[in-house]
């Protein structure tokens, strides 16, 4: 559970609201009429069996897919048909299920790229480098170094990410997302493919991000156990529909959820 517990999650402000979202690809429904909200400072999990539409849901939230129906409200402002980079500039960052790092670049450059949305100097200043562009670069380097320190990846700072082991790549990706100083952080299966120890590390980082920076987190995860320990509230999807929503305990007790996870045939 997150350490920010000044208020119970249910009483905090709503950061993101998803209303009646439906999404389909060429007639195939990926998401059907889903609504839920994410409150400021909470860790919100979206779980469900394979193909439940979890990743599609994240893709909708950050504008990568545009739903056919429904609205998304972020920080009280409706966000219709926004492009992904707009989402990023407005404070939504994310990581990916299959690592999507920039393989030709170092750890440092990857994370610096994540900071691009906060950097202002234009092409001409950068061409000259000396002066404002360099100052800006250094300013952001300092911020990035703090993230590197936070994630304990100092030793791979200048290593091309392509050469890193899987677990570290995941961590670099988290760093890249954090670099944008997001208000909402979307994590797509942050622990997929990790061993126990790596999972524990990653859980610790997620909790620390939440408590140190106060970042609101929405995460997708396959491993039920991890989710229940980590999150304040959980949304459960199955075949693109919402079948449960509530605290980990409530969700655990929900019969539909149990059925979905036990693989009871769908009607």
């Amino acid at each position, binding site marked *: 559970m997150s350490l920010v517990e000044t208020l119970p999650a249910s009483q905090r402000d709503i950061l993101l609201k998803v209303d009646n979202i439906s999404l389909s*690809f*060429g007639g195939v429904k990926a998401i059907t009429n889903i609504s839920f909200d994410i409150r400021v400072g909470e860790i919100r999990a979206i779980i469900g069996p394979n193909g439940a539409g979890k*990743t599609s849901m994240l*893709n909708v939230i950050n504008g*990568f897919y545009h739903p056919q129906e429904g609205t998304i409200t972020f920080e009280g402002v409706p966000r219709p048909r926004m492009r992904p980079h707009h989402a990023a500039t407005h404070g939504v960052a994310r990581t*990916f*299920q*299959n690592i*999507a790092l920039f393989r030709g670049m170092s750890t440092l450059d990857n994370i610096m790229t994540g900071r691009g949305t906060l950097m202002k100097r234009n092409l001409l200043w950068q061409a000259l480098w000396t002066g404002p562009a360099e100052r800006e670069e250094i300013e952001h380097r300092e911020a990035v170094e703090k993230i590197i320190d936070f994630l304990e990846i100092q030793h791979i700072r200048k290593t091309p990410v392509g050469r890193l082991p899987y677990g570290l790549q995941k961590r670099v990706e988290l760093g890249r997302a954090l670099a944008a100083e997001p208000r909402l952080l979307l994590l797509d299966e942050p622990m997929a493919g990790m061993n126990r120890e790596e999972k524990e590390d990653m859980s610790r980082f997620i909790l620390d991000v939440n408590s140190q920076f106060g970042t609101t987190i929405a995460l997708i995860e396959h491993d039920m156990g991890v989710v229940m320990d980590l999150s304040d509230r959980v949304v459960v999807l199955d075949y693109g529909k919402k079948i449960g929503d509530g605290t980990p305990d409530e969700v655990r007790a929900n019969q539909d959820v149990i059925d979905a996870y036990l693989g009871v045939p769908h009607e």
Partner: protein
Amino acid sequence: MSPDFLYFIETVLNGLMSGVMYSLVALGFVLIFKASGIFNFAQGVMALFAALTLVGLLTGQVPFAHLIHAIFGVEAQHWGAGMPALLAVIGTMVVMIALAFLIERIVLKHLVNQEPIILFMATIGLAYFLEGLGDLMWGSDVKALDIGVPSGGSFWWEDVTREWAAEGSDYFGMYIDKLDVTAAIVAAVLVVALSVFSQYTRMGRALRAVADDHQAALSVGISLRTIWVIVWSIAGFVALVAGIMWGSKSGVQFSLSLIALKALPVLILGGFTSIPGAIVGGLIIGVGEKLAELYIGPLVGGAIENWFAYVVALVFLLYRPQGLFGDKIIERI
């Protein structure tokens, strides 16, 4: 029918036929790209090389005559006797197969799993090499190629079409080159043959499998390397056919290799992996080009055939990035 309309038909027919020639070259590209993901820029030069070799064999040239002269001072340009056409064609085909084998051995084997751009560059290197080699072997002068393919305008067709024109109009009939007609027929036969080959033979199925999944191809029991040699041999054969047709039409010379550039817009229009795409794309480009020359050319000062096809393809791509026969791209992350 009014002469204007007849002109239009004539243009379209000519366009279709030159389109077939484009398709012929594009086919070579598609075959290789489908089977190995290589964008073979050397396809045009292969056609040139095949044509040069064919002429050399037909006329009984001594290979590397100039070089031998430069090094040893021995002057020997010709053996003194040429070869019958059929034998020369077979001989050239043997050379092309050997070439495919060497390319696989010396180049492709070492570049497995490299990025597409690297493979692409390698084929440009190959194009340079073959161009230099061809010139060095057979000389760089313009040569005529004649293996008995009929050529020249068809008087019969001129007569037939003259009948169609409205009475009293000043119309002299349509000009259609017999060579173009032959080429169209040959190309059509080739396409049918290739389709049959890829549909109904074990090798053909393996080739199609390899396009989808290298592992799957291996499970068919044919090694990837064999497949590559075969594909490049077929591409060599297609190049030979294209070389004969184009060479008969406009002589064998360096510019023959530039027909590859003609085929590229066809490729983006039809898609890199679609044989029907190559055919339909070729026809569209061929007709479009001729029509544009007729109707748009005069407005801008002519000589637009160099780039018009590209612009057509480009505009089309903007509207449909996956090409004519491609599936809609759904991006995933």
